[in-house]
């Protein structure tokens, strides 16, 4: 890592010798030509990667500027999406994106925490490795497969729960379904299909393995000394987890959750397959009709005019900035928790 210089031996002059004849040796590393070339090439690759990444942001901003200039502040407050009549904004689709991500996080965090705790604390030692692989495998399943599963399998089974929720908990604003009469026994399940809840469920399953692997790694790094101390004081296993593993893994829990949130915000195809798009602020998560920025881009870019494309780029830029902030915060939190700053053992 840091040892890149050729080994240099410094010989100190004896005290009797004439001092002024000794020259201070140059201890800077010297590189011969192949090494110089090598360092140049790898440095160039670093610059290239940075340039590509920055170019993504700059081009998005450049292409989005036309729409942003035309719409100004209305871009954030409007919720319709009709760029060709200059009437568009991300209020609706950004709310939809966040609602789907929130449902996903509510599904994913207990699942991820439970599984991470099981793998790091409860599972027999022999099965730990294969369980970890299985969870990683879940992260590698293509999103279109999750989308198919959500649309053709989950949707049929979850509408009953949606109906129950809105019948008995409909007084909570989120669970209201407009146009549903709970006294009408013939009301079909169509009022509950293609909703934010179903999309959120599927996205939640997709982000669980990501959050889980971060949490598991941090949990398994909880210091052995403090674990033993808790047991020595007579703690049960749950007592040990609550007083050692969870406080130590706090950063990992928060960071893993935010990493999952970043992925949930950007998910496209699974959401696209499940929801039926609406372009309005739609806080009723059980109701047919939802929206997200990424699925709007996938839906609208094909038939978009020059200005419509610019509007889509602006939406993409907004999504990019949001995920960037979320991910950046997550990375910082995870890194801080990994350095062991919270434990002195």
């Amino acid at each position: 890592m840091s040892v890149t210089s050729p080994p240099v031996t410094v010989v100190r002059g004896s005290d009797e010798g004439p001092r002024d004849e000794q020259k201070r040796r140059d201890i800077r590393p010297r590189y011969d030509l192949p090494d110089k070339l090598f360092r140049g090439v790898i440095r160039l690759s670093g610059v290239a990667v940075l340039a590509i990444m920055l170019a993504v942001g700059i081009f998005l901003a450049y292409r989005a500027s036309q729409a942003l200039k035309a719409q100004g502040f209305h871009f954030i407050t409007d919720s319709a999406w009709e760029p060709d009549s200059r009437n568009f904004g991300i209020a609706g689709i950004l709310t939809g994106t966040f609602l789907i991500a929130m449902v996903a996080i509510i599904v994913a965090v207990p699942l991820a925490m439970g599984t991470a705790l099981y793998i790091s604390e409860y599972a027999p030692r022999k099965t730990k490795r294969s369980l970890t692989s299985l969870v990683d495998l879940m992260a590698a399943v293509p999103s279109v497969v999750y989308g198919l599963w959500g649309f053709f399998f989950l949707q049929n089974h979850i509408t009953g729960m949606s109906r129950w929720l809105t019948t008995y908990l409909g007084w909570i604003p989120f669970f209201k379904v407009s146009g549903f009469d709970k006294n009408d026994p013939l009301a079909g399940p169509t009022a509950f299909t293609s909703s934010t809840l179903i999309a959120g469920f599927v996205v939640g399953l997709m982000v669980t393995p990501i959050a889980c692997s971060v949490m598991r790694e941090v949990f398994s790094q909880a210091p052995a000394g403090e674990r033993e101390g808790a047991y020595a004081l007579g703690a049960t296993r749950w007592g040990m987890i609550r007083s050692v593993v969870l406080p130590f893994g706090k950063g990992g829990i928060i960071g893993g959750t935010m990493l999952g949130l970043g992925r949930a915000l950007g998910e496209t195809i699974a959401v696209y397959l499940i929801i039926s798009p609406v372009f309005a602020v739609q806080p009723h998560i059980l109701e047919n009709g939802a929206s997200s920025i990424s699925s709007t881009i996938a839906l609208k870019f094909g038939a978009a005019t020059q200005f419509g494309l610019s509007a889509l780029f602006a939406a993409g830029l907004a999504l990019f900035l949001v995920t960037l902030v979320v991910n950046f915060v997550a990375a910082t939190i995870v890194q801080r928790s990994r350095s062991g700053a919270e434990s002195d053992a």
Partner: protein
Amino acid sequence: MSSSTTISASTSSVDDPYAVAANAPTTFVVAPMSSDAPAQRRRSLSGVRRTDGLAIVGALAAAVSLTTILFTQLAPFSGPLGFVLVTYLLFVGLYALLVSFDESGPAVRDRVVATVVHSLAILLLTALVCVVVFTLLRGLKALVHSNFYTQDLTKAGPLDPLTVGGISHAYVGTLIQITIALLITVPLGITCAVYLNEIPGRFARLVRTVAEAMTALPSIVAGLFIYATFILILGFPKSGLAASLAISVMMLPIIIRAADVVLRLVPGSLKEASLALGTGQWRTVWHVTLPTARSGLATAVILGAARGIGETSPVLITAGYTASMNTNPLSGPMVSLPLAVFEQIKNPQPASIARGFGTAAFLLALVLVLFVVARIIGGRGPGNLTARQRRRRAAASARDAQRMASASTRTPAVPVPNP
């Protein structure tokens, strides 16, 4: 990947011995050495007792029967999902009640939490199995026809039966696109990871931060970027190359990050030993660092490829759609597997949906195979060898020893000149 496995292996050795102590504190009394004492029964050291199992079974039976009564006689509930949910809640409550008959508060809480944690893990694995099995089962209808693997969709409309048409154009497209993407990302990504590790400094830290932040880049934004630059500004048509570039932008940060982690795990002593022998920096990297991290790097690349193969949204924007085979990435639209799934599912005809599921099952199987290969190659940390590699090294070193011994017996006095 490999970092986590090594770490969990080292900590797991300490938390298991206490599994017994946590559940049942035991005191060992040495038996008196008299002959007339009754034969001692061997104590069971496992923390599981018979009452534990009985409590679980009892609570489960009670929960199922209570829920059945609730659903059929008492309350207006219905539906399998609701049944499972209510049963589970009742089960946890009843189990807590049963345990509380012979345990104190903290032990009851411990048991309940253990039950909940176990069931959450089981739930997640069930969901995974459900997704995989559902896709494979629905896809089976299309997968049994051999024409599914050999033909493209030029002659098969959405209404045609499954005995016509297939997905050969889609998997050829995926193969071409992922090859181009790997040709771009593997050299660039691994060189960049080497840079991050070999020339640390403020700039390297900046590159690492940006690359890590970019792993959360929504894939559709990567597609939009290539659409804005490559297609709109440079004027290229929608093609396989554009799709490969979009996938590359998405895969690059993933590969850099994974390779960076693996390279960081290469022991510093190995590099220092190489430098101490007078080797330059690039020879050290080429002959020591990269070979040591080889299996981890392979895993990083394969996992990145699995992500790239399964990604739909960047391809959707940049590749265009066609029903015919196109092997030229430079011109004309080129379909990949996930895009083919997406387009076929949009038709409501049963044959088209069956084809979509068949394609999805094929894609899933491909990802599974890649994943298993990655685990087999990269299951061990840097420097850990397989049994065969160890045998080969041992044989080589024995040969060296023999050669040196025979050389020194032939010319005992004269030192061997250094080549």
